[in-house]
């Protein structure tokens, strides 16, 4: 357990509304990540953060923005939700492994439905 919580766990929203998902960690990890998981696509990286106020885009960042104003919280915002953003969203942190790699640990996920 890497001490990661996500909120909300489930959300239903309407097309065009803004949505913010929160990832909270309690162990002072520097690196944090947002993924979405869809059938047939697997896990795809949306955005990641390598420190407070330091973020960058991943593979599928269009339509999403992120913010990290403090170490423990990483927020994912859908400025104007679309049905194509219906998905399960996972937050992850990374910790250094044995030989220079960084192992990622995942939160429980948020299931978002855009109607």
């Amino acid at each position, binding site marked *: 357990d890497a001490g990661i919580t996500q909120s909300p766990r489930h959300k239903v929203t309407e097309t065009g509304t803004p949505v913010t998902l929160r990832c909270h960690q309690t162990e002072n990890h520097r690196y944090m*990540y947002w993924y979405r998981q869809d059938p047939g*696509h697997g*896990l795809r990286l949306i955005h990641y953060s390598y420190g407070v106020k330091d973020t960058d885009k991943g593979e599928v960042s269009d339509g999403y923005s992120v913010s990290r104003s403090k170490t423990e919280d990483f927020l994912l915002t859908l400025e104007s939700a679309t049905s194509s953003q219906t998905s399960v969203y996972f937050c992850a942190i990374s910790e250094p*492994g044995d030989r220079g*790699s*960084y*192992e990622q640990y*995942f939160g429980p*996920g948020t299931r978002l439905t855009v109607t």
Partner: protein
Amino acid sequence: EDQVTQSPEALRLQEGESSSLNCSYTVSGLRGLFWYRQDPGKGPEFLFTLYSAGEEKEKERLKATLTKKESFLHITAPKPEDSATYLCAVQALNSGYSTLTFGKGTMLLVSP
């Protein structure tokens, strides 16, 4: 571009029937290859990291192996509780911020 392909997409086994899952990868220098287990409605759970060809890691009924082009997850005498989706991911040497590239996973169902 880093790529990960997992096969088969789905596998159904009888309890006790051993088998292997495959993860083929292309990466510009491998920093690590990772295996995860994911149960329905939950986040992926870390299992193993492999670093170089010839390396093996074991955990209970699972054994992961690595070659220069692929990794295998061998499941020996599986039980119904081994049913899950197994994900493979790679991290490249030039991955500046520890990003991973995931495969689409293999869904394993073990029947009693």
